[in-house]
């Protein structure tokens, strides 16, 4: 990391460097792009993955935090901070040309904090309508419902995007761009559509059956979880995480608990770690079963869909017996877990492991080599490794493009450094690689559970935690491997019992942001198939 500090000082001499939980660099807005570019192009340790892009209302200024990490070693991280004191017309420089994933994130920051980004090609609001009054995540936001009434009138979608660009001689130009050409044949896939896996809206320009361009509209179920969290105590926030990516509910919650535990320096008992890890892996199998089922259903094989649901049911029964919940399982709490495992838990899980293995063979025979299925998946929806990194596409999809991005390997948490498992990586980058990755990850998860299930130590399931937690002042990050990729939690605390700013990194948002790229020039039916292979979950995007 000393090299990095040297690099920073060489590039931007007046940068403020702090060693907090992560190496944090504060720069003036003009220098941010330069510094980010230097980081990305640094040959020795390229910091080429933008994990977080967090807009924060710091009170006196509106700012953005960027968490960069290296694609070769995810544990090498650096935080960039910048901000502007202009609250009327805040402008910062975009890093979209360096990290594609910044595009949607910057649009989100614009919608929620009103910061506009110079050189971002499309500065429409993400999540919110263009005519929304006020910026919800600002501390002076007026949430009076009369300002933004619920209208029953249908609003036309305007396919014109404003943007601000900087010309070569440093002048700022505001203009608009058309998203589609005038004679494009546009169909709306969503918001209500059987295969968008939720209320997602893709405006799709078609040339016959071929997809020319996709424009993503999101926010149909935006609930403002991050804003709501700012008024709630930490134990109250916990249940929100289950409602992000509801298919990896337990893992998301694990991420938030870890973040709070790290900040409050709470030691989690060994037994709780075991239960958490086993439940996380069961959750992963459950999610991958459903993902497999949905992908086959998107390709038109309805029977396979039911088979996936059948195996998932066994896991849900185990969840139900453990803690009463099936989908939203309310198991993790700050300091440990809420419920101890039931008497027959080990027996049930051990019976499930061989059962699932026979079913994996059945999946393989039934679908993995089906000639029609192969025709719909092999070499379809190609995502190169460079694009995966630029779009920060993690999880089975990122690993299908040959990027080793498993947080469990790079930054082990819970018990992942004690168990032996393989990180499944395929280099093809097509739908089929993503498909096979999930099936193989089920096998790895079974292997992890096998190693833990007999060794659960006796002891407490939860550390003693004060009912009202006050986190010490500071910024805290945690990153976990959810079923769809890296899930992250960022908490900025000012010493209160509620967070000052809380941000969830959503793996699905990165997956969707790559959709326009990988679906271009594919057939409309493959667009659906690719969506199934990416396996995004909409509430995770909208938050």
């Amino acid at each position, binding site marked *: 990391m000393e090299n990095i500090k040297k690099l920073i000082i060489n590039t931007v001499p007046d940068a403020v460097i702090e060693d907090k939980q992560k190496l944090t660099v504060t720069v003036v807005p003009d220098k941010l792009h330069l510094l980010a570019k230097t980081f990305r192009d640094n040959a020795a340790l390229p910091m080429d993955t933008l994990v977080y892009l967090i807009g924060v209302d710091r009170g006196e200024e509106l700012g953005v935090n960027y968490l960069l990490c290296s694609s070769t070693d995810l544990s090498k991280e650096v935080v960039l901070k910048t901000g502007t004191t202009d609250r009327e017309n805040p402008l910062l420089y975009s890093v979209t040309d360096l990290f594609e994933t910044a595009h949607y994130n910057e649009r989100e920051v614009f919608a929620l904090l009103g910061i506009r980004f110079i050189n971002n090609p499309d500065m429409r609001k993400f999540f919110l309508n263009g005519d929304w009054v006020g910026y919800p995540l600002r501390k002076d936001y007026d949430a009076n419902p009369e300002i933004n009434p619920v209208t029953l009138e249908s609003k036309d979608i305007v396919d014109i995007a404003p943007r601000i660009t900087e010309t070569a001689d440093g002048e700022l130009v505001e203009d608009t761009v058309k998203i589609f050409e005038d004679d494009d*044949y546009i169909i709306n896939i969503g918001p209500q559509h059987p295969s968008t896996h939720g209320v997602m809206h893709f405006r799709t320009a078609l040339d016959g059956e071929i997809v020319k361009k996709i424009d993503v509209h999101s926010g149909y179920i935006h609930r403002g979880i991050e804003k709501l969290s700012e008024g709630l105590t930490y134990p109250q926030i916990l249940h929100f995480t289950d409602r992000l990516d509801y298919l990896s509910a337990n893992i998301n919650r694990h991420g938030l608990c870890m973040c709070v535990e790290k900040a409050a320096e709470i030691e989690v008992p060994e037994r709780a770690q075991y239960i958490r890890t086993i439940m996380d892996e069961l959750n992963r199998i459950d999610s991958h079963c459903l993902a497999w089922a949905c992908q086959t259903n998107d390709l*038109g094989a309805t*029977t396979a869909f039911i088979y996936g649901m*059948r195996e998932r049911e066994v896991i849900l029964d185990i969840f139900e017996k453990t803690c009463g919940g099936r989908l939203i399982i309310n198991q993790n709490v700050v300091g440990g877990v809420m419920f101890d495992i039931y008497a027959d838990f080990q027996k049930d899980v051990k019976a499930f492991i061989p059962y699932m293995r026979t079913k994996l063979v059945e999946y393989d025979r039934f679908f993995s080599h089906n000639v029609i299925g192969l025709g*719909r998946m092999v070499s379809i929806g190609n995502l190169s490794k460079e694009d995966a990194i630029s779009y920060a596409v993690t999880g089975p999809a990122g690993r299908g493009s040959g990027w080793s991005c498993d947080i469990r390997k790079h930054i082990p948490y819970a018990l992942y450094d004690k168990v032996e498992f393989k990180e499944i990586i395929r280099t093809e980058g097509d739908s089929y690689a993503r498909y096979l990755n999930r099936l193989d990850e089920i096998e790895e998860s079974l292997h992890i559970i096998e190693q833990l299930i007999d060794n659960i130590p006796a002891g407490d399931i939860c550390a003693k935690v004060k009912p009202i937690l006050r986190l010490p002042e500071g910024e805290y990050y945690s990153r976990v491997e959810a079923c769809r990729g890296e899930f992250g939690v960022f908490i900025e605390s000012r010493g209160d019992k509620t967070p000052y700013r809380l941000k969830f990194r959503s793996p699905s948002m990165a997956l969707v942001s790559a959709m326009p790229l990988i679906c271009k020039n594919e057939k409309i039916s493959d667009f659906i198939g690719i969506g199934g292979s990416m396996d995004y979950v909409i509430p995770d995007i909208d938050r």
Partner: protein
Amino acid sequence: MSLNYSQPLEISNLTSWLDAALRGCLAEFWVLLIEFVLVAVVLLAAYAVIALILIYAERKITAFFQARFGPNRVGKWGLLQSVADMIKILLKEIIKINRSDRFLFFVAPFFMIVASMLTFGAVPFGKGLHAIDFNIGVLYVTAVSSLGIIGVLLAGWSSNNKYSMIGAMRSGAQFVSYELSAGFALMTIVVLAGTMQFSAMIEGQRYCWNIFNGHISSIIAFVIYLISGHAETNRGPFDLPEAESELTAGYHTEYSGLQFGFFYLAEYLNMFIIASIATTVFLGGYMPIQVHGWEGFNQIMTYIPTYIWFFGKTAVLIFLSLWVRWSFPRLRIDQLLNLEWKYLLPINLVNILLMVILVLTGLTLTDLFPGLF
């Protein structure tokens, strides 16, 4: 009339008795009029009843494939479920769509249902259970069944919905392509049978079904006919026109109530019609299994009424079609057209030639083993 003693359960006994009774007391004109009306009513009723049975059967069989129960609430084993659904669909409101082409929108389902009805009329259900026995039966069936596509295209066009439009266009491409293969496969057998009349064709298969008679060539034609017939019915893996994961419901997205019911009914009946044509042309139709020289065996077989034979054979083919439908993922449009134009059609053309050679050189089974078949 000696046949009557050996086949006591045939419906043709009833029909000929009825005919004789009517002729006894009425003039020729009135007899024909009454009989025509009766035939029409029976066919219409059979059309609806067969559709209901098929819907129930498909649900139960699918449930079996998918580790589910299927309908099991309405009536014993859910037997009345499809009846209840039919009543529901009859009562539902027909929603009028703004800015659609009203007339075409209204007419489209009728094309669909009329086409399948016309085909249905020409199917020989059993000995004497044959509404009309053309001497060009095969040609008639091929011609009339292809009318249905007009309904699909009109529905897609008039709905003023982009999904419907894409579905209809896919359907058009698909139907035109696969109609060729289905037609050629039937022609192959026409070459073998030497007739286009269904009754004559069935009679010719008394001791040897066409699928065995033309051995290699017949089996190829049979497989091609099943594939292309399956494709014509717009059912998975060829259900692109209504691919629900892409186009919500394809060409009938905007239809509701009875109009949707027509499409639904026609789809099921088309499945039945394809299976029954295949039965008639390849599997000996309503003819019981007969073996040269086994008089006792033949006698027993003929005790089983012909319509049982027909429906039994058809049911096997329908089961096959359901099995395929619920196992495979959906094809993409280019894969679908590739399959037809690059594989099925060339194979088919060669196959006709092969069949001609087989027939001309006397290499069919009946020619090779005249005593056995």
